[in-house]
């Protein structure tokens, strides 16, 4: 088998198995909540998480991290398009569950998180960074949300006085939580969400993007952001 053929088969495996299974796993685990007693609950995403998921996918598309035409272009067979559709559905489900997993489930904190997500995604859509910058930005956004929800708020509202709680309380000395209610998720939920977040980000990084392999080099290629790239040196030589 030639190197090209091997690459093509690998790409088919990637589309048929890796991406759908990664995103479906993220969709499954993103809604998993484990209470202190070890009881499981599978929480479907709230409506606002669906809105945020659409914004996230739009940002992935606008920034070139996800190119749907790679999955649905007319030269592909029906089976290949069905594989592509499975990836898109799994990506949407995973994105909704990730947003829900990283956002407090109710109360004022949920509202605050939702507003921040909305502003951040709106800003990302407007700024249209390139793929690498978007992936870095998502890593920071998801990481920050994880730290605030599971470490800071989790420690502040934990029933026992942990070291983290004492440190946070010392830092915000004089500030009272008053009647601001929050139910911290069980500790195991944090570990599951952390692993799910990494899985989801890995899946996003592995999404098909850029020109299709073997599609040939264009003389002039326009990429999102109106940047014109001229990869063919013949143009430079005036041929």
């Amino acid at each position: 088998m030639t190197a090209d053929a091997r690459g093509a088969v690998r790409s088919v495996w990637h589309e048929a198995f890796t991406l759908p299974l990664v995103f479906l796993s993220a969709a499954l685990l993103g809604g998993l909540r484990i209470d202190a007693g070890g009881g499981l609950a599978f929480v479907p995403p709230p409506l606002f998480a669906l809105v945020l998921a659409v914004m996230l996918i739009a940002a992935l598309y606008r920034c070139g991290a996800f190119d749907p035409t790679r999955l649905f272009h007319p030269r592909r067979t029906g089976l290949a398009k069905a594989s592509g559709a499975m990836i898109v559905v799994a990506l949407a489900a995973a994105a909704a569950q990730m947003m829900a997993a990283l956002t407090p489930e109710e109360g004022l904190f949920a509202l605050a998180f939702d507003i921040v997500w909305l502003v951040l995604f709106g800003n990302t859509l407007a700024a249209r960074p390139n793929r690498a910058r978007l992936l870095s930005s998502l890593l920071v956004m998801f990481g920050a949300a994880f730290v605030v929800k599971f470490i800071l708020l989790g420690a502040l509202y934990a029933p026992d006085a942990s070291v983290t709680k004492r440190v946070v309380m010392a830092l915000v000395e004089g500030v009272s939580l008053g009647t601001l209610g929050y139910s911290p998720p069980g500790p195991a939920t944090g570990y599951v969400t952390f692993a799910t977040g990494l899985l989801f980000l890995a899946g996003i990084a592995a999404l098909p993007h850029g020109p299709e392999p073997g599609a040939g080099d264009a003389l002039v290629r326009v990429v999102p952001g109106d940047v014109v790239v001229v990869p063919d040196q013949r143009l430079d030589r005036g041929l």
Partner: protein
Amino acid sequence: MTATLLAERSWRSASAIRVAGLVVAATYAVFIVWVYAAQPRTLREVRGGVAASIGVYRIDAAAFDEGLRYFRTDRFAEARRAFARADPAQRDARTQYYIAYAFLREGWGRVYSDDALYRQADVALQRAQAATSDGVVRVDDPELTLKTSDEMAEALARGLRRDASDLNPLSMLEKRP
């Protein structure tokens, strides 16, 4: 000619991979939808639910028989523990029916019925009904007064209802269900 053959074989191989991938992903997606709909509380329930959905779930017969022995000697708490051990995934209609019956008999009294135990009986009865295809449980046990889920549901509803019949002294002569 060789190139054409190779291309043909590669196309077939790609199609086979895609079909397999779609089947695996669709099965996984169905499992996820089931998990979110069924809301299993433990990994045992997840395993039991999957086993039941493909028709290979079996209860622990020895634990069930043990539960039945406790049940017949009115040791209801012990009976429920044994039944729970027999049906850890809570997917067997007959076992769940006996658990409901154990709550019902323990909660039943000549003068009043224990509402908390009756409610737990109702929850177990709902699990039993959910485990059947037609929503009705029938248990052919001569020692039971209530042999169907409909009869038990009505007995529980009567026990939980507050009305003038509660003051009827003749109700003290009723037989234990």
